[in-house]
């Protein structure tokens, strides 16, 4: 086989031209700094499972975000029921390329799959699929729902989040 996959070279060229904004996002930085990873939690509680319980949900989210025929259920549908490819979707190969860049430049010290999750949230914010403030509000709602009384998404944190 060729040493360098020509498809990767083409992808790298195309994606590099898009100038992905790799600058830190404050909300995600707070999670990166203060969030407890599965590696730490499983060690502390003596749990053997190598993956956090939410990993498959994350994989499923990534798959369901896939553009057009890469959407796992979309292509399974009868032709006349398939959704048209949408610009709002996140192409799987592009997402993985962006994850590689973000992992290398921003989330280097974060273990897997937490860094995959941060990279996905980063990609979605930078693509304008939702705003940082929207995400902050949603984090607060989820946090309250799960009774996480001492979480880091309290009102003052949301009000300090300017964009979105």
């Amino acid at each position, binding site marked *: *086989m060729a040493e*360098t*996959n020509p498809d*990767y*070279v083409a*992808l790298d060229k195309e994606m590099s031209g898009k100038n992905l904004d790799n600058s830190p996002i404050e909300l995600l930085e707070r*999670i990166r700094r*203060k*969030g*407890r*990873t*599965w590696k730490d*939690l*499983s060690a502390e*509680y003596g*749990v053997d499972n190598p993956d*956090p*319980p*939410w*990993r*498959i*949900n*994350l*994989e499923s*989210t990534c*798959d*369901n*975000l896939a553009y057009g025929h*890469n959407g*796992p*259920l979309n*292509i*399974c*549908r009868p032709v006349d029921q398939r959704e048209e490819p949408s610009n*709002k*979707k996140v192409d*799987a*190969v592009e997402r*993985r*390329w962006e994850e590689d860049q973000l992992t*290398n430049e921003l989330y280097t010290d974060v273990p*897997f*799959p*937490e860094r995959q*999750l*941060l990279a*996905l*949230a980063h990609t979605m914010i930078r693509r304008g*699929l*939702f705003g940082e403030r929207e*995400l902050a509000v*949603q*984090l607060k*709602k*989820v946090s309250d729902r*799960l009774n*996480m009384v001492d*979480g*880091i*998404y309290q009102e003052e944190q949301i009000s300090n989040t300017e964009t979105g």
Partner: protein
Amino acid sequence: MSDDKHDLHSPAPMVDEVSEFEVLELAVRELAIEKGLFTKEDHNRWTEYMHTLGPAPAARLVAKAWLDPEFKKLAVNDGVKASLDVGIDWINSMPTNFGTPSDYCNLRVLEDTPKLKHVVVCTLCSCYPRPILGQSPEWYRTPNYRRRIVRWPRQVLAEFGLQLPEDIEVRVEDSNQKSRFIVLPVRPEGTEGWSEDQLAEIVTRDCLIGVAVPKPSVTANRKRPVRRAVNPYHH
């Protein structure tokens, strides 16, 4: 009740706190649903399906191939058809029962010989035969593995603990949107007379990717530290 008996009936340990990452996963998913990027029902169906996946069917396929020369021929010539014998229907068993994405349809089984060793990669992203092998391991996704295995396969395999003599050819297969691969390794010595169940136990995920070879005493994957790629792809 004595302490010993108490231990026998103790529940398995569990993480008794919600992490910020768990909250983030749920928040991102709910926002995506709220924005209409996918539906909750689709997410649930796909997630349920994904929870059923793992490496056991692929290990079973290899064990059957070791025991049955006719099945081995079928596996090498038509991996999709052979998968039916281990309960994996690449065409009709997806959540909708109406076919499957094109990139899931073509499984190829790569047969090792005493003079040929296969190893699988996806240099573009992290394509992986999930229906028969489950979720890919972390190292398989890393640029470090994806870039180096095609250039220095012997060196990378040695890092996994697999030292290959020079007279064994190493062939790296690159997954893509149309084809997914698993490796059919050589049956190891010392397994004569073993049952299919016994053989399947030593066919680990790493053996099926090709970075390890089955050994009679090994039933688990080797732990591997994950390192950054230090050079861009064109170096």
